[in-house]
């Protein structure tokens, strides 16, 4: 069994998702659009890979559908909407800005504001500068430094 597995591992092809040139569209511009779309969509099987990069069967099917829709004249937005209708916003690797995601998108701004607020508070809290030295104190300081 182990030997069989070892042989299978040796036979495994390198991880080029689009392994079959027949998958590619003959029209360069259309193919580039399809690839750009595929890079924006999440493979639902290997979830941190895009549809364009994944080797999963489902990703291959989705790549095929993207190309079909590009050829029939769908706009980029229509293709994305088609995917979102089936798999939800989860399928988009770049989530849209909405009520659910404003914390996500706003996080850098929120962190910046929190940092500014902390800096302002820390500044305000700093104890006031000590009162200037009186003449007597100045005299004593001079004496001390002299000796």
């Amino acid at each position, binding site marked *: 069994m182990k030997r069989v597995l070892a042989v299978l591992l040796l036979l495994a092809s390198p991880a080029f998702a689009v392994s079959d040139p027949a998958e590619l569209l003959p029209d360069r511009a259309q193919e580039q659009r399809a690839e750009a779309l595929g890079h924006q969509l999440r493979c*639902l*099987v290997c*979830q941190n890979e895009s549809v364009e990069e994944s080797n999963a*069967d*489902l990703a291959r*099917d*989705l790549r095929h*559908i993207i190309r079909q829709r590009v050829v029939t004249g769908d706009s980029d937005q229509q293709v994305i909407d088609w995917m*979102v*209708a*089936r*798999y*939800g916003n*989860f399928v988009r690797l770049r989530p849209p800005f909405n009520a659910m995601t404003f914390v996500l998108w706003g996080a850098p701004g929120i962190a910046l504001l929190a940092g500014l607020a902390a800096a302002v508070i820390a500044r305000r809290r700093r104890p006031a500068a000590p009162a200037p030295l009186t003449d007597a104190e100045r005299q004593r300081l001079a004496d001390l430094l002299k000796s």
Partner: protein
Amino acid sequence: MTPIQRRALLLAPLGAAALGGTAFWLLLQRMREGTYDPHGVPSMLVGKPLPRFSLPGQPPSQGFSSTDVTATGRPALINFFASWCIPCVEEAPVLMTLKQEGTPIWGIAYKDKSDATSQFLQQNGDPYTRIARDEPGNTAIDFGLYGVPETYVVDKSGIVRWRWAGGLSADIVQQSLAPLIQSLA
């Protein structure tokens, strides 16, 4: 710095760590119970009408279409399965029990060879009212399917009420599925 401030400064990070730890533990607990799946993709179909489809049959069964499922006028299950899927083997006895209790289950063999499907049904039992074949997997994509098995509950009027991604267990049936079907009947 007053002693109280100093104590607060010491306890605040400890408190934050304790809170984080508890949250993480709860998350792991829910993953173990199977009530939370970090890879889970929420279904877009719940609350929407069944997608339209018409699929060929797995001989000797006739194929079926979305209208066949809704025409029965009673709640039904649609179960995507494949002979190559291990959780499908595990959930087979659960589906057999559901069948015995009288729930109609419409089976769709996903990306499977006809011979392999027949063999799978011989070995694991056939709980299905009818079995259709989705070899290209396009109907599955219309359902938003991302793995097998997946089970959908369709109510009398053809609205999808529930989706379970992964194998059904007796627990899930008892806790979620059976009460739902009863409430829809």
